[in-house]
């Protein structure tokens, strides 16, 4: 660990010394209908990922908690959308300050309108703002998987607002908004660090702060509805095309490449996860296949526009067993209760992806990108390591602080009685499934 810290130290110093260069004012681009159509539709696809995640996660919890998960996802959609317009977009994509944060010029989306974004491929700035919003949304929603089945809803609401403002917005600025990571050349095509590592690590910290679910030690808690999880995985995969290909910000060859490798890595992830469990306990499972697909999608995210199809296949073959190990063995050994494996899949898969981007990236694939280790550029790999470490530290620390502060004012966790009863009943006063045509029947115990 030591050399890493030193590297980080140097990097920080180095960054502080970079003169705050004004980006060469780009020529106003003419609107391109093809690219605009692409980004708008991709935004819709990415938006669908959050309801998709709700299904993916919803199927995994016990039936008494399924509505609480769906509710967290819908709440994130509401909170982050409003926050983004008021503050988030400008913090992330406003004119850079000290490579750390965007300025407040776009407060309330002032001036973000129909005109093409300067320097873009002819996309209205409103479209860019909408596209990026969907990323902020799904990222915050991912965390709910780590705290599922025990976090109080009101605490979750406050946490979401603070987290998206204090963790997501700065990170998005660093990587995509012209901040220090961008300046250093750390590569993250569609959000390996910004989206997956940040949410995974924050989820892990939150799971540790909240503690384990009741009864977790006595028994393995099983998904209550795997077809729902499968549906969610399908919608996520679908939306991920918008996520990764859309991140080219144009309907061009890079987008096409990103599209192709996204699909491949998901496929290879299924392959390798199912293979690992088949060897390990003798049976291939649907839950494993769905998990492997998501792990593959996570892993390719930072690399999507930069690597070749064959590299994507290799990445998918690696991410399956590694994530499988993380969720089946490592979690137990360390003893944290990351309910739905937000860290195990998004944290670990994102980390692997960010690092492998530094291995497999190649300018022969995308001349606008960088070369990685295999193309003879070990510096890029070190930069990727730096990006990962910085994201772990930043996201982990700030999440911990946010939770500590909220914990001062209110309980983070439901009572034991509420947990036994189920969050649907105790927090939301609803039943997910009502069997007969009669009122007056509840699943509560």
């Amino acid at each position: 660990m030591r050399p890493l810290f030193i590297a980080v130290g140097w990097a920080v110093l180095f960054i502080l010394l970079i003169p705050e260069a004004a980006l060469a004012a780009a020529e106003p681009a003419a609107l391109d209908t093809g690219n605009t159509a692409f980004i708008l539709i991709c935004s819709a696809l990415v938006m669908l990922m959050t309801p998709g995640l709700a299904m993916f996660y919803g199927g995994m919890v016990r039936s008494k908690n399924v509505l609480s998960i769906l509710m967290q996802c819908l709440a994130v959609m509401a909170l982050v959308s409003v926050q983004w317009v008021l503050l988030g977009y400008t913090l992330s994509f406003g004119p850079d300050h000290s490579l750390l944060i965007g300025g407040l010029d776009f407060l309330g989306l002032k001036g973000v309108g129909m005109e093409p974004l300067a320097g873009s491929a002819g996309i209205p700035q409103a479209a860019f703002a909408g596209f990026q919003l969907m990323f902020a949304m799904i990222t915050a929603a991912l965390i709910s998987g780590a705290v599922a089945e025990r976090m109080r809803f009101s605490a979750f609401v406050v946490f979401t607002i603070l987290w998206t403002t204090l963790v997501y917005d700065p990170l998005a600025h660093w990587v995509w908004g012209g901040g220090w990571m961008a300046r250093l050349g750390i590569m993250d095509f569609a959000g390996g660090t910004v989206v997956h590592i940040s949410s995974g690590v924050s989820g892990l910290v939150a799971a540790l702060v909240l503690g384990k679910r009741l009864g977790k030690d006595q028994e393995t808690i099983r998904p209550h509805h795997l077809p729902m999880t499968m549906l969610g995985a399908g919608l996520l995969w679908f939306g991920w095309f918008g996520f990764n290909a859309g991140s080219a910000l144009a309907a061009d060859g890079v987008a096409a490449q990103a599209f192709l490798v996204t699909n491949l890595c998901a496929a290879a992830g299924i392959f390798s996860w199912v293979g690992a469990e088949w060897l390990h306990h003798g049976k291939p499972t649907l839950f494993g296949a769905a998990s492997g697909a998501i792990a593959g999608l996570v892993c390719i995210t930072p690399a999507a526009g930069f690597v070749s199809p064959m590299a994507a296949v290799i990445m998918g073959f690696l991410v399956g067993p590694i994530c499988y190990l993380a969720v089946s063995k490592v979690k137990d050994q360390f003893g944290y209760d990351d309910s739905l494996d937000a860290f195990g899949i998004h944290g670990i898969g994102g980390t692997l992806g960010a690092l492998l981007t530094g291995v497999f990236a190649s300018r022969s694939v995308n001349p606008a990108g960088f070369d990685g280790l295999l193309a003879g550029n070990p510096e890029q790999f070190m930069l990727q390591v730096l990006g990962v470490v910085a994201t772990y530290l930043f996201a982990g620390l700030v999440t911990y602080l946010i939770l500590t502060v909220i914990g001062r004012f209110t309980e983070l966790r439901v009572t034991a009685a509420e947990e036994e009863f189920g969050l649907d009943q105790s927090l939301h006063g609803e039943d997910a499934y009502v069997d007969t045509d009669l009122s007056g029947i509840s699943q509560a115990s």
Partner: protein
Amino acid sequence: MKKIEAVIRPTKLEELKKVLNDMGVRGLTVYNVMGRGLQQEIKHYYRGQEVSIDLFAKVKVEIICPDHWQESIVNGIIATCQTGAIGDGKIFIYPVEEVIRISTGESGNAAL
């Protein structure tokens, strides 16, 4: 009157219904239950984490009948549901004090 409860394999229900029907036994009530007996527990894995399954899905068929039908019904159930393997299930017999048909108010054997 007696109540005959048979906990059987779900896949046997369809046949049992036919057999009983042919014997002239129409009335019956069916429950979805989960049961444990001598049947061996099995292991499932969810994301690699082991779950030990020791309750299995069974169907319980309940027949209330006049005393003198008891034997033939029990024999019918055994004949239909026996595979000889563990997990075939069990038959329990209980005393019944009274039966009333709601639609008519009749009671006793006439209500069956």
